[in-house]
């Protein structure tokens, strides 16, 4: 299988979907010249009508994507999590609510691709990991890929889905290489990853780690390291948070009796919080130790490299959390 960089996987998904369906178009800031790489070569193939550079007007173009989706288009919007605050009214008041509010008349096949640039000295205004806020708002599907193949397959599913989707692209993975199957090797000749199906990343028997987005790589590293100490750690990647495959996680906790969740979002009301609460409600009698959440500290992202790394989950923190569950 081909080794593909995460950002190239995004580019492949967009190109394939734009070739497949002429109603798919893409808009965002500086996408024609592909500042982030994900929209490379789109302008030359698809032209200015379908590859739109927008003004700095998130409220305006987030809403325009919604309106276009209501009348038959399938827009992809490129943005950053931290710019989503500017267009929040359109995401919440319109994208999330229109279908229900209008009794099912509105169908909004719109995709927002939101890059999360954290961990690289971008400071508080460019480092948000905001997916838990959208889990709290009914009406938006929340996608959190952790590797190039899932990134490609989940983005293609999002473009075809008939509900508003936000795909959170973890910037710590932007340069990650991973195996992405060639289309001709796949059933149906393309890579589609369905929503709501968690992936078993490592099998184990002593403790379960659920990783979210970039947290999956940390969990896998912890599992590999602890294996050398004779500790067998299962790693699960939910891949989508809305919908959420709780069955795979509950089954795993039933087997291991222990749960650690690693989530780059702020700890309070995080994805980790919701996963912990689901397991506490529905898997309590399987647990042999308290659930451990390893998420970002409840503080803004500082610029200086002397402080920033202390905010996020890392291998050391997750390893310690696994060991705490084993002490009980």
């Amino acid at each position, binding site marked *: 299988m081909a080794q593909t960089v995460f950002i190239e996987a995004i580019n492949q998904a967009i190109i394939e979907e734009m070739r497949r369906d002429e109603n798919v*178009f893409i808009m965002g800031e500086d996408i024609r010249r592909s500042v982030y790489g994900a929209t490379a070569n789109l302008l030359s193939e698809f032209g200015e*009508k*379908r590859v*739109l550079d*927008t*003004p700095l*007007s998130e*409220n*305006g*173009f*987030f*809403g*325009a*994507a*919604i*309106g*276009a*989706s*209501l*009348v*038959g*288009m399938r*827009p992809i919007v490129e943005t950053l999590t931290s710019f989503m605050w500017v267009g929040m*009214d*359109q995401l919440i*008041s*319109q994208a999330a609510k*229109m*279908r*229900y*509010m*209008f*009794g*099912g*008349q*509105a*169908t*909004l*096949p719109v995709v927002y691709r939101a890059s999360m640039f954290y961990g690289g000295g971008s400071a508080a205004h460019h480092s948000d990991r905001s997916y838990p806020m959208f889990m709290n708002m*009914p*009406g938006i*599907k929340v996608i959190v890929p952790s590797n190039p193949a899932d990134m490609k397959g989940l983005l293609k599913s999002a473009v075809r*889905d*008939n*509900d508003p989707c936000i795909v959170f692209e973890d910037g710590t993975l932007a340069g990650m290489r991973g195996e992405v199957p060639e289309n001709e090797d796949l059933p149906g000749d393309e890579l589609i990853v369905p*929503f*709501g199906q968690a992936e078993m990343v490592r099998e184990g028997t002593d403790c379960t780690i659920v990783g979210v987005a970039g947290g999956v790589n940390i969990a896998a590293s912890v599992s590999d390291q602890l294996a050398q100490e004779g500790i067998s750690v299962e790693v699960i990647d939910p891949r989508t948070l*809305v*919908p*959420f495959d*709780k069955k795979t996680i509950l089954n795993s906790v039933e087997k291991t009796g222990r749960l650690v969740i690693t989530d780059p979002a702020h700890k309070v009301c995080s994805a980790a919080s*919701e996963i912990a609460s*689901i397991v506490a409600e529905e898997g309590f009698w399987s647990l042999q130790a308290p659930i451990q959440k390893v998420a970002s500290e409840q503080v803004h992202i500082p610029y200086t490299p002397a402080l920033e790394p202390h905010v996020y989950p890392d291998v050391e923190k997750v390893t310690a959390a696994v060991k705490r569950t084993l002490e009980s």
Partner: protein
Amino acid sequence: MDIDRDLLLLMLRRMWMIRNFELKVMEVHSAGEFAGGAHPYIGEEAVAVGACAALEDTDYIAGNHRSHGHPIAKGGRVDKAMAELYGRVDGYCKGKGGSMHLADYSIGILGESGILGSSVPVAVGAALAASIKGEKFVSLAFFGDGASNQGALHESMNLASVWNLPIIFICENNQYAVTTSYADTVAVEHVSDRASAYNMPGILVDGQDAIAMYEATASAVGRARAGDGPSLIEGLTYRFEEHSLGLGRVRRGEYRTQEEIDNWRKRDPLDILEHNIISQGVATREECDAINAKTVEEVEKATEFARNSPFPEPSDLFDDMWADPIAFP
């Protein structure tokens, strides 16, 4: 501009329909027949009806909280609108939206929005779709003088202009954002003056005159369909009633003088249109009265339809949450 007789009478019929619908809503609301609030459009009928008379069913509109006039002006059904206010299954949104969220996707009514200015970018998106696909439909966004101060409006007008989109921005300037006056909140004399900042035509129209609204909108729609881009039309108007039903009982202090209200009531848009129709010999007083009476009858029937429609079942709570349904959590 010569306006077709049928179109003039259709406009009159729709204006009477809105007026009688709103009068009925006020009556049944004060009798406690439905739960939520409502924002009467009485006094402003000429703006929506004149504007929508320039549209086809295949064109799109999006509106705001003062939400009954726009769909009726676009040809929406009063029975489904009334049933929605009553929260019944036969309502436009099966009782999920209520007064502020009427929509009819079968005739291009993309929906009314309770967040002001928020539906305007959505209307821009419909126009963007026309532009990308090379189709001839247009989009029309209704908003008030209050929403004219929202960032969404400025972003929308700039986007529409740089992308040369087929959209008509219609400002219904009724001069008050709830109780706060235009003069206290808008930095220019007319909202339409702002059009120059977005390099589009800005037209100030007598919003009590349905024919003037129609003519201005028809011209803007013609420009839009020809690929000449967006327009901003400001209809200067007045709401004859309170901002919302029941507000008069809770607010402290007056914000409009009785004299001002009385003077505007003398410029009733129905009187003005009927005067034009009768004086031009398009129809007689009796024919106009018959149109009014017919709409009273239709509104009565709509109200009976709403009263007789069942409430949704508790099991309907989760319906229409998703197009591609999921179980969550």
